[in-house]
């Protein structure tokens, strides 16, 4: 597998896990009964996803060749840029 494809797979896994953990925490906290159980299931899926990422990259698996820490830095930058973009959008809409 090419390095670019490995990087894309790695970041896909990280993005998926972040959303599953975040949404799972929200659903488990604010939901009740079945919704709460679904939230715990999301958290479990996110944890398994993170464990798989750890096994493949940090622990020296198939994705070890990718500069994982720099990629995480890239994700953090992407998040920050997206948040700034959304803030610009909201300010433009509210001020109009």
């Amino acid at each position, binding site marked *: 597998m090419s390095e670019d494809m490995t990087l894309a797979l790695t970041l896909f896994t990280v993005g998926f896990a972040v959303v599953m953990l975040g949404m799972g925490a929200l659903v488990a906290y604010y939901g009740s009964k079945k919704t709460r159980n679904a939230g715990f299931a999301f958290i479990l899926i996110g944890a398994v996803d993170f464990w798989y990422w750890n096994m493949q990259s940090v622990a020296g698996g198939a994705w070890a060749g990718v500069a994982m820490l720099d990629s995480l830095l890239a994700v953090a930058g992407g998040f920050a840029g997206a948040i700034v973009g959304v803030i610009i959008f909201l300010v*433009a*809409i509210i001020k109009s």
Partner: protein
Amino acid sequence: MYSWSDPLFGYAWNFEFFVVAFLFGLGLATLGSGLFTAYFGAGKSQQIGFGLIVGAVLVLGVQYHQTYIADPATLDAASFRYGLISAVAAMVGMAAGMFVVLFILMKVDTVDDLEDLDLEDLEDLDLDEELKKLEKELAAEDDGGDEAEDDGGDDAPAKDANEGGDKE
């Protein structure tokens, strides 16, 4: 270019990834929201949408210029490629996660409160009877209220009018 050796982890962080991905995140988010607003908005909102699209094109264009056209280049071409791949892959991963969460929540019967509701009581309910009971209760309250609050004030004008009429 913008690397920092971390003594704690023993790792040289390449902050150019952060800058590149930040610009990609800013550009793509602004472009997406601008396209959305320009398509669905009207009047002033639509103009804002076009403005956001222009801003996004400027951000992405300057980033491309500083990577491939400017001499000497400010940003590394490899960082540009890796940053783009990282940003797009992470966004696709997050979108997939959101889709899975929403799909499961829609499939799971999450309306828990209806289970606590005793529907048999509602089926046996006679609405006409309940309405009559309510009307009776309201009428009784009105009567009771009039008697309790009757201090003669309501009758006073009529009495005064009669008295006035007699005097004339």
